[in-house]
């Protein structure tokens, strides 16, 4: 379907043009947060993020002290050939390429002469990242040069928690599902059909159904707020999909390979670990990426089982809590959002091939 010779230059141009427009639309949200996260906290609040791009703006060239000229602010004043009242001056009086504007209060203010010039706001730094990543106390520089000590948001701690939650929550279900998938695919046992139907039926069950009873069990077992609890929960919720995908894959492996191994006297366990697992790596990788991204980006399960305790909370919960309590602190929110995105984006762009393969194999989380 690639551009047939009959296709004209115009239609190729149109296709690429529309595509570029869509891609641009899709990228702007991420770019805006990325750019903003490096901007000064004061700049973010007072000017739009696209002001880092070259644009024309008023720039002060000279300052006039109205008292030196002996101007009376009560009546019309004449400065630089412009006559205007104080109120007009305060709003700014434009004339050609220059603008006169009164800065400050009536008794002690000054008049600025401004010109339109091409400018960029290039005041970019890593201060915001320092503040969201570090815990306890962070020294931050303010616009006027003074320093202030604030409490950091400890995203580095949350990142560590997210890793501690995500890695086992990815590997444990894969391990358990791989054993089960092999069992369903290559072993005979009574109830095999029934239990596999259960696996398929549970594929689309919304996990909301399980939260209240599981939370009750966890309360009894003192698992609320522990990593072990959330590993178990993510394992349970991820198992139907993992088992189903791996079953489909393992079932499709050539039967002769297995039979030859059996004839050689290999046990199920040996065949599974030495033969099936290595052969299944593409399927394992597909599911692993899927589960990794799912667990890392999960909010509901983490919120309910780990909760907001800073010792265990994961990045999504930390980010949501800043969004909820300090929704105006865009210097923290933008940097925090980006910190929470770095790991999944790396995994995603590094292993996109496997991710797509998993999706095409029917990765749909219940």
């Amino acid at each position, binding site marked *: *379907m690639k551009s047939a010779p009959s296709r004209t230059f115009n239609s190729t141009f149109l296709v690429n043009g529309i595509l570029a427009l*869509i891609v641009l639309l899709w990228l702007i949200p991420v770019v805006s947060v990325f750019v903003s996260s490096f901007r000064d906290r004061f700049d973010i609040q007072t000017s739009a993020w696209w002001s880092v791009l070259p644009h024309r703006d008023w720039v002060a060239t000279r300052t006039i002290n109205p008292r030196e000229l002996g101007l009376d602010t009560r009546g019309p004043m004449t400065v630089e050939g412009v006559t205007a009242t104080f109120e007009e001056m305060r709003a700014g009086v434009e004339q050609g390429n220059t603008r006169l504007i009164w800065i400050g209060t009536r008794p002690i203010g000054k008049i600025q002469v401004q010109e339109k010039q091409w400018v960029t706001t290039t005041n970019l730094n890593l201060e915001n990242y320092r503040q969201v990543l570090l815990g306890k106390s962070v020294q931050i520089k303010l616009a006027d040069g003074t320093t202030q000590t604030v409490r950091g948001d400890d995203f580095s701690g949350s990142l560590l928690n997210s890793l501690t939650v995500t890695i086992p929550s990815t590997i444990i279900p894969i391990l358990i599902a791989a*054993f089960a998938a092999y069992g369903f695919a290559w072993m005979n046992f009574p109830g095999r059909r029934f239990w596999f139907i259960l696996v398929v039926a549970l594929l689309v069950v919304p996990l909301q159904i399980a939260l209240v009873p599981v939370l009750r069990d966890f309360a009894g077992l003192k698992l609320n707020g522990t990593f072990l609890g959330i590993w178990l929960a993510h394992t349970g919720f991820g198992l139907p999909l993992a088992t189903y995908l791996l079953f489909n894959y393992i079932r499709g492996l050539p039967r002769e390979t297995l039979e030859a191994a059996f004839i050689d006297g290999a046990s199920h366990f040996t065949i599974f670990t030495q033969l099936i697992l290595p052969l299944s790596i593409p399927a394992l990788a597909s599911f692993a990426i899927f589960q990794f991204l799912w667990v890392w980006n999960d909010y509901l399960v983490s919120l309910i089982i780990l909760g907001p305790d800073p010792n265990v909370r994961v990045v999504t919960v930390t980010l949501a809590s800043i969004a909820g309590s300090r929704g105006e602190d865009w210097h923290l929110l933008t940097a925090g959002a980006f910190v929470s995105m770095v790991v999944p984006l790396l995994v995603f762009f590094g292993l*996109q091939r496997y991710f797509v393969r998993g999706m095409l194999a029917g990765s749909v989380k219940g």
Partner: protein
Amino acid sequence: MATLGQTMKNKPSSGKSVIAWILRIGLAVLIPAIAFFFLYQGFLFLRAGNAPKWVIALVAIIWGVGGVAILYYIFNKLVEMLSPEWTARLQPFVFVGPAIALLLWFLALPAVRTFYISLFGRNGPPALPVTMAFTNPGEYFPALAAQFVGFSNYVAVFTDRLMLGALRNNILFWIGIATPLTVIAGLLVAVLADRSKFERVAKSLIFMPMAISFVGASVIWNFIYEVSPAGRPQIGLLNAIVVGLGGQPHGWTNYTAIAPWNNLFLVIIVVWLQAGYAMVLFSAAIKGIPEEIIEAARVDGATEIQVFFRIMIPYILGTIITVTTTIIIFTLKIFDVVWVMTGGQYGTDVIATQFYRQSFINRNSGFGSAIAIVLLLAVIPVMIYNLRQLKEQEAFR
């Protein structure tokens, strides 16, 4: 576990098979239970020490993953030491047992338990040991009856004002608008990318939001929708455009004057997040259309529009249905975006935010559970479809 008995059809129930069943169930429960016990002890040990956080994290990861792996190894070794006959009987349960036990604990039984809880009032069924039903039925059943409300929670689900709003949002905005928009966006990009030499880059970038959490996406879009008082510079892109065109700035998601259409600003976020998924599946399907069919149509003078509607769409109809179903299931459970953006205020509540609010904030487990059961009922048609598909596969004939 009562269902286990039904599955043993072909065997005469001799003493041996009873023992086999006890051992099998034992294996299925024992492996997770022992794994759990050791992991738990390790945790207590870790928590008692005051090592640096990253050491604890590292040990926890190794402990968790390694522990489970070793357990499978040990149990398999134990089963293999038995006579071949018994090994064949029990080994499958070393393999599938733990998965079944976890599925039962975390999904299958909770569905039944949630339904049970949904029949009771605010606090759910009284917290009495089940054994009391036999030892002291005189006290157990009246205590149960006192909390029992029958199906009145379900009546509330479909009459409560907030729930009705949530159901409307889920059906009208999330299934009715977000789903087709996502499908159309995904299809459009897939078709365009297929004809472009920048296919890989374009698809990668449209796909990228799939890697971003809903919380992160909410923060990103909140920034787009950010509003400053009129007259001040607008730092949100949307308001900057609106003000630039001479309009009034609004905090779009909480703009109740246009309610319920403020939901659309949440819908946009999900379309942005999910279009990549639709695109990937459509892209693969389009590549599966034989070149000859399309070329033949073009030779016969079909326009590109006709090729799209008369050939491509019918050819990938199966994929369109799959993608649509998947997105409907997904939007039924939509939670994070709404919760972080608006907290369900300004008429943006959905079923899942209502579930969360009732279950974990209002602490009304009966009502919350009823909402969860309604969610489950909504996906049952898909479940039945999946099971039919399974029946058609030869794997389990």
